[in-house]
C-alpha cells in the first residue's frame, strides 16, 4: 500500500522520542509484527528519501498503526513534528516480519532503546495465544525506551537495565537455566544479539533478529541495504535487509 494517511495522535514518550498513531485501515489489516513502512511527512525534495520505520502498533479493529520515532536527523525530526490531522505518506507493510510460532509456550523478547519498538506487536500476538512472555529491555535511560509499562499490562514479566555494566542478556542467561524458551526475538543491539547466539548454541531455542540498515527504496530494488549472511550450508552472501529481512534467523547473521 502506498497512500497518504492521517495522523491521529503524536504522543511524546521522552526526549526526542514520540509515537505517531496513523489512520491506515488497509495497512493495519495486512501488517505483521516485525514489518516496517517507508514514511515521508514532507512535500519538499529535502530530505530526499523516505524513512524506514518499524511497526510499533498494529490495530486492525480500529484501522490504526503506530510508529515510534527517535529524532536522529532531518527526516525523523520532520516525522516527529507531525500533528494530529496532518497527512503522511506511508508505503508498506514492507519486509518479512517475526515468525510467530503456533505452539510456543514461552518466548523471550530482547530489545534495546528505540530498537525495541517492533517487539510490542509481537508481544501482543503471543499474549493473544496465551504464551508466556519475558521481556528483557535496556536503554541508556528509561525515557529512551518505548513501551516499558506495556509489557506489564500484558501480564509479561519484564526486566529493564540502564546500567552499562549490567546486560539484560545476563538475566536471560539466568532464566535459561530454569525456563524452556521456544524462541528468542531481538532487535536494537548487535552486542545483545551475539550474547543470544551463544545461549542459542547452548539451549537450542529458535532465535530471530530484526536488522536495521540505511535504505533508499525499502522494497528490494536499489540493493542499497545489504547485510552479510551465512546460509545453512555455510555460504556467505549479501541479503537485502528490506526485502529478505528485516527479520532473519539469528544464526544467519551471527556465527
Amino acid at each position: 500500500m502506498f497512500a497518504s494517511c492521517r495522523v491521529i495522535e503524536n504522543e511524546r514518550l521522552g526526549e526526542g522520542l514520540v509515537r505517531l498513531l496513523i489512520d491506515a485501515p488497509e495497512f493495519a489489516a495486512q501488517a505483521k509484527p516485525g514489518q516496517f513502512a517507508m514514511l515521508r511527512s514532507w512535500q519538499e525534495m529535502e530530505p530526499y528519501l523516505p524513512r524506514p520505520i518499524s511497526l510499533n502498533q498494529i490495530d486492525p479493529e480500529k484501522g490504526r498503526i503506530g510508529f515510534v520515532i527517535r529524532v536522529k536527523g532531518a527526516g525523523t525530526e520532520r516525522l516527529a513534528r507531525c500533528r494530529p490531522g496532518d497527512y503522511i505518506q506511508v508505503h508498506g507493510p514492507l519486509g518479512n516480519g517475526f515468525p510467530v510460532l503456533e505452539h510456543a509456550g514461552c518466548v523471550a523478547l530482547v530489545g534495546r532503546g528505540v530498537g525495541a519498538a517492533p517487539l510490542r506487536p509481537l508481544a501482543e500476538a503471543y499474549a493473544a495465544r496465551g504464551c508466556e512472555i519475558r521481556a528483557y529491555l535496556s536503554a541508556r535511560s528509561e525515557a529512551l525506551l518505548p513501551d516499558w509499562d506495556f509489557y506489564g499490562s500484558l501480564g509479561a514479566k519484564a526486566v529493564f537495565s540502564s546500567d552499562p555494566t549490567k546486560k539484560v542478556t545476563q538475566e536471560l542467561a539466568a532464566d535459561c537455566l530454569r525456563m524452556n524458551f521456544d524462541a528468542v526475538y531481538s532487535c536494537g543491539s548487535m552486542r545483545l544479539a551475539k550474547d543470544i547466539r551463544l545461549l542459542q548454541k547452548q539451549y537450542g531455542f529458535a532465535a530471530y533478529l530484526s536488522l536495521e540498515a540505511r535504505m533508499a527504496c525499502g522494497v528490494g530494488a536499489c540493493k542499497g541495504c545489504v547485510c552479510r549472511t551465512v546460509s545453512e550450508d555455510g555460504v556467505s552472501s549479501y541479503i537485502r535487509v528490506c526485502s529478505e529481512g528485516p527479520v532473519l534467523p539469528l544464526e544467519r547473521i551471527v556465527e
Partner: protein
Amino acid sequence: MSAERDLSVRIGTLFMKNPVMPAAGTYDYFENNAGLFPMESLGAIMIKSVHRHPRPGNPPPRVVEVYGGMINAVGIPSVGMEAFMEREIGRFAALNVPVVLSISGSRPGHYAECLELLDNDPCISAVEMNLACPNIDSGLPFSSDLATLRYTVGESRKATRLPLIAKLNPSVPDIVPFARAAEEAGADALTLSNTFRAMKIDIDRQKPVLGSSFGGLSGPAVKAANLFLVWSAFQQVKIPIIACGGICSWQDAVEYMLAGASAVQVGSRNFSNPNVMPEIIAGIESYLAEKGYAAAREIVGLAHRQ
C-alpha cells in the same frame, strides 16, 4: 484527458508508447511495483545491469542521503550473464511492454560477450550498455576513454541486432566527443547520463560513510549539470538521447525534452515516490495538450530554436 496525444518514441526497432522508463537499478520489474500501476503503462521497463560475470556487489553501507539527492555505491551485484540467461530471462517473456536489458563488464570484450550470450533473445527489446563501470584494464570508466568507448561499442554492435543504447559517464571534460564516438561506433541511442562521482565523510568517525568510500550522486542535485550534457550532445549527434539525471517531476522531464531528450529515465525519485512515473507520463501529456502539440516528439530539442 487528451488521450489523442501521441507520446510514442522509436529507437531503432524499440517502440515505446511513451517516453518514460525507469533508470537501471532503481525499479525492478517484480520488486518495486507495489501494485500501484500496471507496468504496461510505462514506455519500457529496465532490468538492472547484468554483469558479464557474477559479482557480490560492494560492502555496505551502499547508500547515503546527501543534500539534493543520494549517493549509491551498490557495485552491480549480479548473477552473471550465463545465470541470467539460464534462470532469469524467462520471467520477462511475453510482457506487454518493451524490456530493456542493462549490461556491464569489467573488460572491453565483456559487453560483446554478454550480447553473444543474449543471442538477440526475443524477451529483450533493446540493450543499454552501462559504460560507467571501471574498466579493469585501464581503471577508467569505459566511457571516459575515447578509444575504449569506440572499441567497446563497436564490438557490441557486431554482436547483436538489438537496438544498442550507450549510457555514458558524465564525469568527462566534454561530453560531445564521447557522444559522437558512441554514435560512430554504432549506438542507436545515448543515455545521458550515469551518476556523478561523489562521496560523503562522517565527521565523527572521520571516515567515508560508504563501504567503498565513494559512489555516484543522483537526484535533483545533478539535474542542472546533466541537462547541459543533453543540450550539448543534442547539437552534435543524430541518434536519440534518453535523459537520466534528477528527473523528479513531469516538469523535469519536459525540460530535458526541450533540451533534446527523446525519452527520460526516472531513477532515485522512484524511491521516495513509487508512483512518480505514471505522474510524469500524465504531466507530459497535459503539457502537450495545454501547449497545443499533437506529439511528444514535436517538443524534442525545441529550446534550441533561434
